[in-house]
């Protein structure tokens, strides 16, 4: 048996050796793993996320991306994110819907991105200022705009034909839609239109912008759901559901399914679904046009999509996160992303570039509807302050009550706006 002293020395030597090895670059060269949270289910861009990760990892062997799908769209992701932040284990990068950026920027600890304007000026060159503005709040850059989508009107040309209408001339205004819709319902027995009703107020904001109103007053102190323009637009929606009975009042899944299975002639939802619509329309070839205008008023729609925000707290993770963001917005990354979803690329010139997205835009005619809408895109207003999420819910509940038709839109919207405005920061 060796004397104890020798044993102790051996142990000490081993400890020193382990410490030394730990400090050498051999350990530091271990790939950095970062988490990326997104809302892209298998039918909504999921495969494109996987392709982005594979391509990125091949180019950056030092970084590993763990992509995690979060259900419940942007609100669902926010809920998980808030819990992860509370547990101090946030993802390095997450998609934050435009409707929630003000809330996230105000409530969550995150990395401010202005410093990268100096260190990476080339990256910022190709992205127009009005797009980059979607990630700016209070003069600072909180997130990088990633997916940009517009609502469009998908339609079923067969039902137009069956009603004796010309499928090459779908309605361009709401008046035309109501006239043609009445004919479709009368002749085919099918419903004419469904406006999406998920757990957000994106299409409601589109109607308000479209009729010349504002979802939030310019000083940010008043929710604009009680303006004459908003009341008129929402009353029109109610009338289509309960009076003329040409529109469907269905939950989000039900509405989409009813349109795809040929029970509804027109469906207003995001261009981000175009790939899914094209592949799942049963027995007809789905087409898309911009959403209807209000009479002579110019087209105006709320812009959907998300910014990428960095929540990494460790500098190495933050650097890796920034590399990932740069890649997904690079011409190569944006091409993969747009092809796999239908989201418009923040770098508009890619659409005309034969090396990148031109072939895709040539063979996906529905994308034209989004490109035509793009110049008229307005923000999807995010309600500021700690009660922003409740405000959204109040407005969704108001819509639900309106579409049931037990009371006219005006008193419902006046009450909801008053209640919502009281929750805005003073």
């Amino acid at each position, binding site marked *: 048996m060796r004397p104890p002293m020798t044993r102790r020395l051996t142990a000490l030597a081993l400890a020193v050796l382990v410490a030394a090895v730990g400090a050498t670059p051999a350990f530091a060269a271990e790939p950095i793993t970062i988490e990326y949270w997104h809302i892209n289910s298998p039918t909504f861009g999921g495969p494109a996320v996987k392709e982005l990760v594979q391509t990125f990892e091949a180019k950056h062997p030092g970084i590993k991306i763990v992509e995690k799908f979060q259900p419940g769209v942007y609100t669902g992701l926010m809920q998980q994110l*808030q819990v992860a932040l509370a547990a101090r284990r946030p993802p390095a990068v997450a998609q934050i819907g435009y409707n929630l950026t003000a809330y996230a920027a105000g*409530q969550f600890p995150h990395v401010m991105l202005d410093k990268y304007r100096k260190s990476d000026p080339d990256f910022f060159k190709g992205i127009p200022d009005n797009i980059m503005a979607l990630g700016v709040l209070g003069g600072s850059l909180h997130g990088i705009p990633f997916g940009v989508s517009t609502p469009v009107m998908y339609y079923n040309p067969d039902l137009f034909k069956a009603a004796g209408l010309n499928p090459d001339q779908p309605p361009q205004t709401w008046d035309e839609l109501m006239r043609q819709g009445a004919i479709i319902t009368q002749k085919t027995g099918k419903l004419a239109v469904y406006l999406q009703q998920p757990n957000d107020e994106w299409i409601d904001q589109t109607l308000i912008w479209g009729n010349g109103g504002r979802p939030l007053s310019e000083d940010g102190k008043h929710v604009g759901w009680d303006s004459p323009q908003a009341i008129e637009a929402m009353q029109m929606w109610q009338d289509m559901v309960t009076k003329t009975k040409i529109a469907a*009042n269905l*939950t989000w899944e039900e509405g989409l399914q*009813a349109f795809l299975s040929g029970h509804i002639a027109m469906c207003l939802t995001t261009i981000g679904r175009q790939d899914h619509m094209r592949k799942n329309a049963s027995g007809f070839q789905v087409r898309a046009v911009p959403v209807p205008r209000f009479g002579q008023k110019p087209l105006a729609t709320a812009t959907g999509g998300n910014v990428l925000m960095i929540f990494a707290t460790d500098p190495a993770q933050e650097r890796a996160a920034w590399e990932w963001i740069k890649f997904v917005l690079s011409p190569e990354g944006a091409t993969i992303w747009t092809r796999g979803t239908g989201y418009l690329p923040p770098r508009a010139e890619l659409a005309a570039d034969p090396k990148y997205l031109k072939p895709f835009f040539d063979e996906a005619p529905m994308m034209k509807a989004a490109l035509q809408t793009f110049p008229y895109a307005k923000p999807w207003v995010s309600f500021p302050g*700690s009660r922003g999420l409740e405000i959204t819910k109040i407005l969704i*509940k108001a819509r639900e009550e309106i579409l049931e038709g037990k009371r006219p839109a005006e008193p419902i919207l006046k009450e909801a706006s008053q209640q919502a405005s009281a929750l805005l920061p003073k």
Partner: protein
Amino acid sequence: MRPSRRWRAAAGYCYLAPAALLTLVFVYWPLVASTALSFYDWNLVSPTWSPVGWQNYVELVHNRAFWLALANTLRAAAALTVLTVLVPLLLAVIVLRVPRRWQDVYRVVLFSPTVISMAIACAVWLWMFHPLHGVLNTLLRFAGIAGPSWLSSSSSAIWAIIIVTVWKTFGFNFVLYIAGLLAIPGEMYEAARVDGASGGQLFRHITIPLLAPTTLFVFLTTFILSPQNLFVPTQILTQGGPNETSNNLGYLVYQLGFEYFRVGYASAAATLIFLVFLGLTAVQFYFAERRIHYGR
């Protein structure tokens, strides 16, 4: 030497300790913590908890959503209790009358919804409830009835949730009733028949009273568990809508805490719910204990 009484008692507590410890940590401690939290304003992320006194409770009792959710929960609990006691009882009685070799088939078929995950059951029902081409409304149309917009109408949404919950949970009670029925001695029926009792009388005077302990168990567990069973269908089918009309207390707490991130406010709601159900359960036990005869 035989261990003293004290040692044996100590050993008993040791055996009890793991279960007691887990209950303390995972049941009672959260109860205390959540009650404490109900006097603060906290968003789950902020490092500071701001004390707000009774304000969360005051706001809650002035919130229409809270009262709607409470009324809905009580309504749903009552409906579920009636349906998941009556339906399984009748089915159990009927199944025990079919020829022996078919009984097992019926038992498996009727129990199968219980083992399906609630989320999957809801996804299936989502399509059955479809107002335009769902099975339910198609059948109703054949009968000449215009079915409702199940999930988008304020009068039917809560019923859609109740239907799914009953369908998903009745199988367990059904099995309990089968066991209860089989435990009733056959001689009792024979003796009664000899005395000239009719089928209805047998059911009323023998089956029902001797099933009373089973019914009590089924009744208590259903009433206490049903508000919890409502959560998943509410989340998947309606999210409490339209306009709060299918909301319930469990889902409301989730909304306040994890949709609006007002954790203190949600805790206040949770504390009130705890008190409400504590009261109801106490009343239930008080009456139930006096009316059930366990002696056979």
